């Protein structure tokens, strides 16, 4: 498993592999590794089980157990899987390059979300914009 810092660099620098399917595979693996980091940081052993055919979704389910705010990245994980399917099922499609670019942004989102959640567990809970206002009024 690559470190989070290495994954961050990879995502910022761009993933470049031989074929669209390999790139898609790598981006999906990155998603899995990021979730593994989250689980390990919480003292859990990342599951090898799949949900709906994908380990990424199995890992997400495990991460959200007991922490509903982790569901804030549920659809993002599903989008990663969706783009993976699009690219690998239709590698010759004219939209493949665009789909891979989008997939990279989706993978980056999971990476930033999990990294942010390691800084503040509150991430993924509602963060009302009136809060600053009320804190000011109270002080």
């Amino acid at each position: 498993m690559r470190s989070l810092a290495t994954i961050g660099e990879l995502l910022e620098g761009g993933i470049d592999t031989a074929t669209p399917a390999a790139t898609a595979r790598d981006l999906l693996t990155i998603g899995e590794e990021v979730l593994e980091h989250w689980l390990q940081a919480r003292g859990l052993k990342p599951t090898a089980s799949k949900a709906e055919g994908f380990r990424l979704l199995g890992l997400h389910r495990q991460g959200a157990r007991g922490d509903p705010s982790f569901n804030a990245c549920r659809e993002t994980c599903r989008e990663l899987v969706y783009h993976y399917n699009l690219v690998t099922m239709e590698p010759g499609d004219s939209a493949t390059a665009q789909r891979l670019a989008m997939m990279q942004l989706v993978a980056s989102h999971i990476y930033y979300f999990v990294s942010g959640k390691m800084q503040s567990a509150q991430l993924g809970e509602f963060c009302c914009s009136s809060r600053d206002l009320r804190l000011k009024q109270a002080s």
Partner: protein
Amino acid sequence: MTDNRTDKYKKVAYYPGCALEGTGHAYNRSTKEVGKALGLELEDVKNWNCCGAMEVKNIDPKVQTYLSSRVMSQAVNEMGHSVVMAPCNGCYHNLKKAEYDLKNDETSRQVVDRISSKAGHKTYHAGEIETIHALDWIKHGIGEEGLKSRVKKSLKGMKVANYYGCMYTRPRHIFPEKDQGAGSESTSRPHFMDDLLAAAGAANVDFPLKTACCGGAHTLSDSDMSTKLVLNILKAAEASGANVIATECPTCHSGLEMHQIRAEKKFGVKTNVKILYFTQLLGLALGLTPKKVGVHENMSDSFGLLEQQGLA
């Protein structure tokens, strides 16, 4: 759910919440103006209180249930409404959550009853009022056909990434009306905002981060991580071909605006996609001026784009 909603949503209690009096002023203004233009009436909840979104919840979630229940009690017992509309994802979420807790949890019922008696008002009971979002209000109160027939300036040329934020559909169990098949909202791929803007002539882009968390912009307001999350959303919107992001929550909206500016200052990355409330876009389509819908109050300067598209 079928469908006396066209009548039922004609006049509803309005719970703006405190954010719409501060950062979300343009949302407040545009929601009211759109209501007027569509013949949908809003009546402010009398003497409403803040739901205490964060601080109170952290101290005691039951007190937050009470605070939300009081808003519903005011709307139903003091004003006789059967529907309360909240345009902020947080207020909407909190009222829905209180409804769920009061239906399913005896302790919540007892706490709410006890505090309500002390406060001297009638206790709110689950099922006495229906809480809806501004999206439900227009989607079912007017509908796409009704909207189409009232459009004066098509949003044609506006390529929209619809951003719902991470709370509009979560947790699923507090929204029993969603995921009920045709005509209902989806929790995995929400589409009500897409539907309404399409009816007003906009082209919606395929946007994979429509429910992605923006990084708790107001939890981590000066954090690079939050800026990176927002920047990623902005980049994804641009990569999807959008020239505007439509929002439906004051908190998500101001988070995007704030961090778009911060991303440029801090990381030197400029994104050009504009950020507008969906009610502002609908208002423009209904022939209202940018000023009427508060475009000048946004941090994101979209006048150039609106002029280019013949909307200003």
